[in-house]
């Protein structure tokens, strides 16, 4: 069985995935797989979130589509109108699902849309009609210019084959998605290190962040211009320590990393070598 592997770190928000999807489904009736896609539906969309501040801000871009869950809430809500194909794709039957609001309401990912004109819940079909007709991949995958989307064998999604650890998008929903993710955005702390008089950049400083409750530690080094960017796993309050040869050690405590944060310019005092 094949599924889609999503790598948000590669997403450029170029629009090609959602435009390909709309091109395939708007104005085209692919019954019995899908009726024409309604207006303002995004069977695949890119959610953009701006985090942190200043020159160390990031735009997190996450492609979001039907997760083709193994424990699909939409199927549970309407077992007679939503089914899973042998190839794993979850499909809303456009005939049986007419008027079934509960299918639209069941999805915790918000990827089922309601077509008021057709009175029909609709979502990504994984381009099942194209795969049946011999296409090698869904339209969004083919259109992606940067491999943020890939169509892969589920069997190949073993940790030893992967360039990054596999992740589940919103594991708390407990729906066992088939769609897999790697490199989902993390909360981070970032900034740049400079000398106390701000005349010099401090490169190769060891930057250590630790969770003030769990003690989990994350490390990194400052780069050419003194920039540092440390991803952490859990939200919470952190302490960050800066250590660079020739400079006094500095620790900043109680950094609120319930969301990503930039510390701006962090200045270090030189250590006097002669005393």
């Amino acid at each position: 069985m094949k599924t889609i592997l999503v790598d948000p770190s590669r997403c450029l928000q170029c629009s090609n995935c959602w435009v390909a999807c709309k091109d395939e489904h708007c104005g085209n009736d692919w019954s019995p797989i899908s009726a024409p896609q309604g207006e303002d539906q995004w069977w695949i969309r890119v959610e953009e979130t701006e985090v942190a501040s200043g020159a160390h801000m990031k735009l997190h871009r996450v492609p979001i589509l039907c997760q083709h869950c193994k424990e699909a809430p939409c199927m549970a809500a309407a077992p007679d109108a939503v089914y899973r194909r042998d190839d794993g794709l979850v499909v809303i039957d456009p005939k049986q699902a007419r008027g079934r609001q509960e299918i639209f309401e069941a999805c915790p990912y918000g990827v089922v849309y309601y077509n008021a004109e057709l009175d029909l819940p609709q979502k990504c079909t994984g381009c099942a009609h194209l795969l049946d007709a011999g296409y090698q991949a869904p339209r969004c995958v083919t259109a992606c210019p940067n491999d943020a989307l890939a169509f892969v064998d589920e069997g190949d999604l073993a940790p030893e084959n992967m360039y990054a650890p596999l992740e589940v998008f919103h594991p708390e929903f407990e729906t066992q998605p088939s769609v897999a993710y790697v490199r989902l955005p993390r909360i981070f702390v970032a900034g740049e290190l400079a000398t106390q008089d701000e005349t010099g950049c401090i490169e190769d400083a060891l930057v250590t962040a630790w969770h003030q409750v769990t003690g989990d530690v994350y490390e990194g080094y400052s780069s050419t211009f003194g920039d540092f960017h440390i991803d952490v796993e859990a939200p919470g309050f952190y302490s960050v320590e800066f250590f660079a040869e020739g400079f006094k050690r500095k620790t900043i405590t109680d950094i609120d990393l319930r969301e990503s944060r930039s510390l701006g310019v962090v200045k270090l005092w030189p250590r006097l070598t002669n005393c």
Partner: protein
Amino acid sequence: MVHSEDHERVRGKMRTTCSTAGPLQVSVRDGKMIRVEPLQFDSAEVDSWQCDVNGKTYKPPLTHPLLPWGMIGKQMAYSENRVMYPMKRVDWDPKGERNTQNRGSSGYERISWDEAFNIIESEMKRVIETYGNSALSEFYSAHPEWGFLHYFFSDWVRFWDMIGSTHIDFSPNSWEGWSAGSTLMWGHWPAQGIPAAPDTFFDVSEHDDLIVLWGVDPMFHNLYGGVDQARLWRWWKELGKEVVVIEPLYNEVALAVADRWIPIYPGTDGAMAEAIAYVWITEGTFEQEYLDTHCIGFDEDHLPEGVPAGLSFKTHILGKGSDKTPKTPEWAAEKCGVPARIIRRLAREWAARPTSFWVFTGGACRRQFAEGFTRLAATLGMMRAMGKPGSNMIGPFLSLSGPFDDVNQIGPGGYADGGMNSVCKDYRNNSVPQRLTFQKLLKSVEEDEFEYFGGDLFNTSAEEYFNVRKYPTDGCSPIRLFWQRGSSCTNPPDRNQHLKFLRSPQIEAFFVSAPWFDRECRMADLVLPTTTMYEREDFTEPARCGKYIPPSYVGLRSAIYHQRCIEPIGESMTDMDILAEVADRFGLKDVYLEGNSEEDFIRKIYANTNIPLSFEEIQKKGYYVWPAPKDYKPNKQFNDFYHDPENNPMPTPTGKVEIFSTLAWEKYGDHPEIPPYPKYIPELEGAESTELKEKYPLQQLLAHPKFRFHGKYNDCTWLNEAYKVKGPDGYKYEPVLIHPDDAADRGLKDNDIVVVYNDRGTALGGAVVTYRMKKGVAQFTYGAWNDPLDGGFGAPDRGGDGQVLTNPSPMSAHHPTGGAYNSSLIEIKKADLDQLAKDYPEGWSGKYRTWNKEG
């Protein structure tokens, strides 16, 4: 398991074509397009090139990565905004009142093609008889549908040169500062100041360690090549290259791959460049020997004979010249807003590591005194011994390509290579000597006569650049009839002034031929429907502009047969067929077409290629991919000059790179706006304009729109629903990117509808509050379809075209045609939509919007 059963029905019939976003395969069923995809090559038929560096390999993808508008064909071909049939403005009577003042406000009526041709014929003949051929004029959008046969360098220039008319020129407005500035240093007049960069792809991949992008964003703005660099940048990152981006906006390539974004105030780039030179000079980390042998004017020892002491670049940088100011990083930091430590660090890294310098074209060159920055940037290139392995200068587009040898890969060529003219027997040259730059159109109806110099897009030499043009040229008439191919004249600055020209009674007839009704169509007296590339046959190379510039995309080199996907929409015709009919009415059809049909032309064009398929085979298959050239030997940019400057001189008066420009010295002496050596000059309207900034404190940034091809596809809902800001009135407003501090100062929050204004104009937009902007700068870009609430007399443009605010001033005394476009100060405030609706009831209901045919 439910399967869709009728696979033939699902697949449809496959056709091929090529767009400005890249090559396409189109599924057609029952005469309608059902699907548009990127063209996908079969690995079995492709003998791909590749590049191996440190055990890592780059291979171009089999599926061509498209730009955002690549797959919107269905929405656009069948758009309600198509021009469906010829239309005439209701109150334009070629036999009576012309009501030119009503252009932009009155509506249109359908007329037949026969009526349209009769009007065209009688108007052209009347104008010729009354004023002479020079009163006819023609202009074209530089951003039409992709084509070779069907392109303005083919059908359009052939027709008008044959008829005889005043040619309206473009300036090279994508890189105007280079064309005006760096030409003084290294010549390259035919390439408008941008030296070709063959094989830079290999040089960067193999030799560079640091990549500096200055005011450029190649990820989405590499022109026609699609998003073909995305995987390449990833590969470069895997090879360990560090990427630094200097830009007022945290741009797309920076978001994707940069190690450092350096925000800078627009127009102060020259100050930062001078400070980098200062660090290199004071620390002795530049290539002195190269400068001694390849350049003139870097230091006092290498000034041309007879030039007074104190005019060398080094003297200026060290503060030993007339301004007595050393150009230290601290000095520059005050001006450009980049901390001195960052400037110093960048300079040191750049000096220590092989560095690729991406700076050609870009926003920093479309400004007042931009010659200063382009010459400074080129001087930095010289100080790094440009041509040495790893030392290169390129731009976001027209710069980077895979191997191309021009011997084994002969296709039709690029759009600038002539189209039908490349296979016709004869060409009639224009009998009218008069030409006019598009930047002087308003002047042409306001002043009886004037003079200017500064060349144009077809400039080939310094002589042509300095050649003074008189308007009207002796023996010629002012223009009276203006025919534009395409709905947008490529975004002239200060749009309301351009509209003033278009409303002038001196322009007795204004025709537009275009596939979509938008922008300037709304001003036309006659609108003629033309086809899109889905509705005609052609034969092109993706991303190939012309022989004047090397091929420019890092994909598999291919040629595409445009199989007609659908029949022409409505009564649309190709430009060639329209012009052939007009030619016929002048008894010139055989001169124009030489008896060829569309297919005859394509057959002849095809016969000039080296593609080893029969014409019938390529016609059926739709494309050809050239195998990788064998034993390819890269010969990178400036390689020959680097090794042997004596035998490979630059096209300059001295044969050297003239850091001290002998041309500028001869013509201007030590002129404050165009000194003989490169120098940062603060703009009259810019970061250092303290007085004007009290009124308009923000700098406008005019980077290319990500989801439009300049002014095209503004109406595509698949795209605009994702990027426009929906107001409380449901209208989709053009985004205005503003820094959180600037927004807070003005009480603005995300999605507020705002008024953006200066003395030149006013437009509405939707606030996008983001740290992607440098504080003090707001991005409000161009190309949104205008919706002026009063028809274009100064009331707000609800559509939000940033060009109503931009600067039409000259770049400098050296470039008086214009070119200060982006030097624009603005202010932003929250819009009162209810009040605007009350003040402009007709405009608010859509009367003047440029996609309203009814009036």
